[in-house]
């Protein structure tokens, strides 16, 4: 059973517009949620995180929203840039720093 799900395998957005990536989870005991970005032939790189006691965290163009009642989080990128084109993974901390990842969403930002 997939405890962290990203139901959209891909997303295409125009440069300058907003990108919204979504993630759902099932385990209410997760205490942190993280987003990673991955370029081809590279490892995932940490982007932004949010504690389960918060509902929003912002870092420059990136904002993560957490809706605990719906067990849903989203990553907003505004404005989107071509360099943002990558695979984005949502992850949840289960215990002891072990992360459970979603399947990933491939974002394509078109000039």
């Amino acid at each position, binding site marked *: 059973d997939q405890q962290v799900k990203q139901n959209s395998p891909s997303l295409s957005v125009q440069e300058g517009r907003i990108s919204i990536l979504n993630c759902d989870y099932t385990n209410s005991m997760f205490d942190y949620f993280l987003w990673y970005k991955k370029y081809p032939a590279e*490892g*995932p*790189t*940490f982007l932004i995180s949010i*504690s389960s006691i918060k509902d929003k965290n912002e870092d420059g163009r990136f904002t993560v929203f957490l809706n605990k009642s719906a067990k849903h989080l989203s990553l907003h990128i505004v404005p989107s840039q071509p360099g943002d084109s990558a695979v984005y*993974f949502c992850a949840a901390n289960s215990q*002891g*720093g072990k992360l459970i990842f979603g399947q*990933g969403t491939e974002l394509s930002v078109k000039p």
Partner: protein
Amino acid sequence: DAGITQSPRHKVTETGTPVTLRCHQTENHRYMYWYRQDPGHGLRLIHYSYGVKDTDKGEVSDGYSVSRSKTEDFLLTLESATSSQTSVYFCAISEEARGNSPLHFGNGTRLTVT
């Protein structure tokens, strides 16, 4: 990439042969992890280590073993490789075992089992 080196970067091997992948870090972090990435599954935890000689299983540990004899090195061994172990393997490190201590990943090893 936070001082993490994975070797080899690419490997092709035959079914039934043993394979060892190496992860080397220069950050002196206590926690190290091995993940595999497969289409449709994201990244899944194979094994992790919380110190020298201290390791434990992740969610997809069958067919894999690990060893950590030094802080800086974490080895992943496939005892007898199978085609289902064709994957991209990522090593990760973290300073603390907490959700607000993000994992930092190496650049991966692409393993093909023929």
